[in-house]
């Protein structure tokens, strides 16, 4: 993974000192909330329903075991022993005292972590494929690009006060595990006809109250032009994006107003005039990153043959939670954080410590956080899978559900969030229980369920195969259900299936949609494929049958 040197450390340490001073001025009343807000947001501090919340950056979701141990210590000492992994591969502490934040940031700095630009109207944590660098279907490791962009965007003096937040995702694989079409800028590493690697640049995607699927701004951008090209997009957005209405301030609205072709022309005019970074420096920096992200072992072409007879439960786990790896003797293992008694992405301090130990033991002390709110061990030997599985079983981290219905993505909802209009965690639990009673998850197959507690769509409900949005109807929690969303390269927006249902009926409604799918599917067809073949009608009928009851 990326290793800080003295310069990276000095940068983070300087910011801790600066924020300590800002908090002091706020607590002494020298700064009012209006002045303090942009400063605290730049350091990941939100004012939540019950307390301040601190969002810690996990750049492109790559986390080392000693860092997770420190997060556990912070959860113990400054929070209620709990952390929450977000859909942007970060970690949130929901019960932090403002006066403690500078100390927490100081602790984080000692393990090369921070909360810089995890909120506010700036370029946020760059996200990527949780399998980056080990995925079998990869053109190039997207973390190299992600880290270049992380450095370029960190304290970029021109782009810290954009019209609205700005999210960038990078992927280098054939399968999109980073939802690039749902980002303000999505970058996809591709080869041109000559085999040269460059980027497809996608822009203007985003969820929130106006969901838009990103459009391709340029189908092939040479790698060397990335930073000036992105800087041009940012400058146009910073200058011309709307600032009069925060709900129309994302770049997607600018792109809609200007038109994608016209905007692409503006970028083409602007970027050759943007000062280019010294190509020698970029080359030297890239070489350093290639080395940092190289595998810590030699990849092998031969996989060991294991003839031992194993439990069916083991194979169920392998089928769902284990993915192929670049090295034939290794595998990528997903640890779902979706236990029924906790919210999606929630993890206790004790479990953090245990997972850190497992990462040491099985995965070269390295983990990934996925945007589906799970932990990934990227370097596990095939020969050690049985032992790892046994341990995970004991810990409740071996539910064979990755990518299946119980692998629900949800925001913290009204249990924590000041913006939410409805709960999401309880709904996730209801659905999990109901579907578990219906059929084993692998019988239902690949199915993405996303729940958001308000129209800000942090639970990415627009992109869920089934999306659930909590709304407030005269003081009562209701849920709108959409169907057919997708966060793959062929991203689609979910379609509303009918009128919103009260909280108590959500599980019924979801069950009806799943039953309709099971009744209509052909062969090994996935939920989304059945929906795309048949359209909404049979699902609508099933939903209405329940709605009428």
């Amino acid at each position, binding site marked *: 993974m990326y290793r800080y040197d003295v310069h990276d450390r*000095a940068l983070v340490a300087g910011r801790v000192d600066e924020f300590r001073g800002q908090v002091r001025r706020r607590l002494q009343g020298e700064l009012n909330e209006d002045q303090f807000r942009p400063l605290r947001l730049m350091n990941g501090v939100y004012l939540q329903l019950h307390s301040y919340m601190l969002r810690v950056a996990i750049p492109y979701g790559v986390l080392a075991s000693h860092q997770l141990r420190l997060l556990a210590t912070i959860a113990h000492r400054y929070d209620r022993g709990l952390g929450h992994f977000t859909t942007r591969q970060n970690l949130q502490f929901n019960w932090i005292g403002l006066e403690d934040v500078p100390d927490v940031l100081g602790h984080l700095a000692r393990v090369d972590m921070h909360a810089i630009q995890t909120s506010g109207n700036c370029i946020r944590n760059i996200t990527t494929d949780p399998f980056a660098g080990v995925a079998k279907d990869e053109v190039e490791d997207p973390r190299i690009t992600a880290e270049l962009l992380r450095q370029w965007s960190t304290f970029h*003096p021109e782009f*810290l006060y954009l019209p609205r937040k700005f999210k960038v995702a990078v992927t280098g694989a054939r399968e999109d595990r980073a939802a690039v079409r749902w980002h303000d800028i999505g970058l996809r590493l591709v080869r041109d006809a000559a085999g040269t690697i460059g980027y497809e640049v996608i822009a203007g995607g985003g969820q929130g109250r106006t969901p838009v699927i990103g459009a391709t701004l340029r189908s092939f951008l040479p790698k060397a032009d990335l930073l000036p090209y992105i800087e041009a997009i940012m*400058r146009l957005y910073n*200058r011309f994006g709307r600032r009069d209405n925060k709900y129309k301030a994302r770049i997607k609205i600018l792109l809609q107003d200007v038109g994608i072709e016209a905007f692409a022309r503006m970028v083409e005019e602007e970027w050759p005039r943007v*000062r280019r970074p010294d190509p020698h420096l970029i080359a030297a920096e890239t070489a350093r990153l290639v080395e940092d992200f190289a595998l810590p072992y030699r990849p092998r072409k031969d996989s060991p043959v294991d003839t031992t007879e194993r439990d069916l439960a083991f194979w169920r786990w392998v089928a769902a939670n284990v993915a192929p790896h670049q090295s034939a003797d290794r595998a990528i293992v997903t640890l779902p954080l979706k236990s029924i008694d906790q919210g999606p992405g929630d993890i206790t301090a004790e479990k953090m410590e245990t997972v850190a130990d497992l990462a040491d033991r099985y995965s070269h002390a390295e983990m990934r956080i996925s945007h589906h709110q799970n932990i990934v061990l990227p370097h596990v030997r095939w020969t050690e899978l049985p032992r790892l599985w046994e341990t995970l079983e004991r810990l409740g981290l071996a539910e064979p559900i990755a990518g299946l219905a119980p692998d629900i993505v949800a925001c913290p909802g009204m249990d924590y969030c000041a913006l939410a209009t409805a709960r999401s965690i309880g709904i996730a639990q209801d659905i999990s229980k109901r579907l578990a009673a219906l059929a084993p998850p692998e019988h239902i197959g690949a199915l993405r369920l996303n729940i958001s507690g308000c129209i800000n769509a942090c639970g990415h409900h627009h992109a869920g195969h089934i999306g659930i949005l909590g709304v407030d109807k005269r003081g009562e929690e209701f849920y709108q259900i959409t169907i057919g969303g997708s966060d793959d390269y062929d991203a689609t927006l979910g379609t509303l299936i009918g009128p919103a249902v009260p909280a108590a009926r959500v599980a019924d409604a979801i069950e009806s949609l799943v039953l309709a799918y099971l009744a209509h599917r052909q062969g090994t067809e996935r939920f989304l494929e059945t929906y795309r073949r048949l359209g909404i009608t049979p699902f609508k009928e099933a939903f209405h049958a329940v709605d009428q009851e």
Partner: protein
Amino acid sequence: MPLIKNDRVIDDPWLAVADEAEIPLHGAVLLGVARWQAERTALVLRNAALGVRLDSGHGPEDIVADLDRLALVAIPFPSFSDGRPYSIARLLRERYAFSGELRAVGAVLPDQIPLMRRCGFDSFVVDPAIRVETVFECLGAYDRHHYQAAADGVETIAALRRRAPGKSQTSATAALAAELETRFGNLPAEDLVAQMVVKEFKNRIAYVSSFGTEAAVLLHMVALADPATPVLFLDTGKLFPETLAYRDALVDRLGLSAVRTVTPDQAEIAAADAGHDLCRCNPDLCCTLRKVKPLDRALTGFAAWLNGRKGYHGTTRIDLSAFEVEEDRIKINPLRHWGKAEVGAWFATHHLPRHPLEAKGFLSIGCMPCTDRVAPGEDIRAGRWRGQDKTECGLHNRPTGAV
């Protein structure tokens, strides 16, 4: 309203003239951009410094043609969170090469001044309610390095890294050892070896082996990680012939391609051990000449080395950490937690050959004259320098005795 320029609070020499107000005959005046555009012809004839306030909604394009007539451009920040002036300032400085004063006015938080300076602003009007000390505290935050180039021309971190790669990339050896211990101290031995050989110390690491009874384990791990890793074999000239044969067999079996045999300096040996009895009359000096000094020479150029010490080898080796510093070099002990059972299991699983002397009761093997069999129940290293106080050759804990 205090005006800050060149890190000082100064009196404003410019007179801001409201859009409807009369423009005085003499003196520097600051006008709104609309008025400047409307009265441009007359204003150009006026023989005094001119400044323009680029009001919200206007961009550099509106004044580009006249930049050489303007001594001051003021850009108002409509609110703390409105970032447009940052882009406008960079364009004026970097694209249009404006070299006059660029002034930030309006909602200017002192905390934002460092960013404004990076984008090309060089004077700032701040709210009088803000303490001057706070402003200077915030200005202090400007003296930093940055990842990206901007209008201030400050050297980027990438440039600094390239200029002094040696210095900036690696911290002091002790700090590096501590960092490695935190990151990788809990890795299983095989992973630790790979991590070091393939990644952390790629092409800068060696394994030092005696090809003794347990050496095959680490040799095997090194071979799995990268068979081209340098293996330094210390041939003191007094080894058992069985050890030499075992070395050849293992090297062949594991495919190790960079085994270097390290020998003592013959002139030193001739001078100090003419009677061939140094090992008896001064074993410490013997070890120094035959092992310690040759190894030091052989390790020149390596940043780190692996060795096979284990905690169960006796009291001298119980509390080993994974990473140590010796002679400004990192010394790595991947097997420090291993016991006899783990060693035996590794041999069995991977079908590794045993040292021929092991079956004859030699559990720890050094030079012939100083190695004895070990009786059942004895410490594994009990046969080394039997009957003497000496327990280590000095490779690992340098002898304190006179040389």
